[in-house]
């Protein structure tokens, strides 16, 4: 029986690894390759940790299996030594197996810092490249205007989006913190230029939500009371899934929307389209974001 259990404990890590190896082929893996440069860096970090942990996993499980087999054979009847190995431990081993992981772990921690900084530290945002976008789409901006191209407001259970409107001369206005009469509105449909870093201001009208773009590896909670800027950069011009990743009530699971990354021209055309629709409906003033349908 004891051999069975030895095999049992040696067998399951093999199954685990086989399952993991089969996973990408069966589409049990990332939802496509990351569609943004930052996302790819996150994936790289993921794979790096995967390597380190896999080696640790295999190593520890192997050793565990080994000591089990050894224990099993040492208890076979007729083995020479009657008693177990009398040892209270080994100082040398302790030092080794605490310093080696320490180095690895510290490496893991420090290696990640700059991706994190780039993603979240406001001063490290790719400001220059964002400004290039403003230039291309002819946004009329002052120096201190928000870098955001849209304001995304989460509410139970939908995403409301507010874009700046157009000036009389056809240039795009800058996004103001307060709603403006010329603002343009959309629900559950976020359009932004592709292939360049774009920023949104994320807020929530009621409880906490989370803005989750799995294909871009982007996630940020919308915190009641705060306006949180997030930037991302979609490589391809297509539509991406946008979900809510923080429990926000019974409809949490269905709070989805799409994010469409498109060319600069298409983006401006989309805003024009919104403008036309809003005017056609003779909604002269901006509908109040907080109004109920």
């Amino acid at each position, binding site marked *: 029986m004891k051999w069975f259990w030895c095999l049992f404990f040696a067998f399951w890590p093999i199954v685990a690894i086989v399952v993991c190896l089969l996973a990408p082929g069966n589409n049990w893996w990332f939802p496509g390759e990351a569609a943004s440069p930052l996302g790819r860096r996150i994936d790289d970090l993921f794979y790096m940790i995967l390597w380190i942990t896999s080696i640790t996993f295999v190593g520890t499980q192997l050793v565990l299996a080994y000591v089990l087999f050894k224990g099993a054979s040492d208890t076979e009847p007729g083995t020479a030594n009657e008693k177990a190995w009398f040892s209270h431990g080994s100082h040398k081993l302790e030092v080794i197996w605490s310093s080696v992981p320490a180095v690895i772990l510290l490496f893991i921690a420090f290696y990640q810092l700059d991706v994190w900084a780039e993603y979240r530290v*406001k001063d490290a945002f790719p400001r220059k490249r964002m400004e290039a976008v403003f230039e291309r789409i002819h946004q009329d901006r002052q120096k201190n205007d928000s870098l955001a191209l849209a304001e995304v407001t989460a509410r139970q259970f939908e995403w409301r989006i507010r874009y700046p409107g157009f000036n009389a001369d056809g240039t795009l206005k800058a996004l103001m*913190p*307060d709603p403006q009469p010329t603002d343009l509105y959309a629900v559950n449909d976020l359009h932004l230029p592709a292939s360049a870093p774009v920023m949104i201001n994320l807020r929530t009208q009621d409880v906490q939500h989370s803005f989750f773009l799995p294909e871009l590896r982007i996630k940020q909670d919308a915190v009641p009371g*705060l*306006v949180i800027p997030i930037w991302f950069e979609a490589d391809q011009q297509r539509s991406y899934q946008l979900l809510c990743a923080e429990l926000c009530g019974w409809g949490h699971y269905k709070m989805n929307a799409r994010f469409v990354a498109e060319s600069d021209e298409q983006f401006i055309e989309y805003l024009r389209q919104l403008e036309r629709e809003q005017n056609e409906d003779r909604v002269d003033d901006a509908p109040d974001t*907080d109004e109920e349908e």
Partner: protein
Amino acid sequence: MDHAHDESHPHVNYFFIFLLLCGCTALSVIFDVVKITPALVVFAVLAVAVAKASLVMTFFMHLKYEGRWKYVILLPTAILGVGLMVALSPDMAMHYYEYDVMQSRIVAPRSEHGAGHDAEESAEHDGEAKDAKHH
């Protein structure tokens, strides 16, 4: 090991300690009344509070006469307590992100209530002003 309370520690003049404590309290009230620089008041008042606390702990709570275990219990607690506040500060006290809906714009003082007020009020939405520019 429930042995009776030991009376080994020397006699303390508790009444004197009490008077000291009262003096301290008076001091902090005086600091409040005599307006020296505000920052100094805060510092002085807190210092007095700490002084009072240590008087109570050392003499009333007999910590002066206890063994080293007192540090084992009190130091970690103190570190954790202070640490919690320090760790909360970056998020709660100094915001990294902007407020969404400001509590309000500055409430105009009663006396100078004037014309501009209406305009300001109408910029509010849902009875709350959204803050324009602040960091």
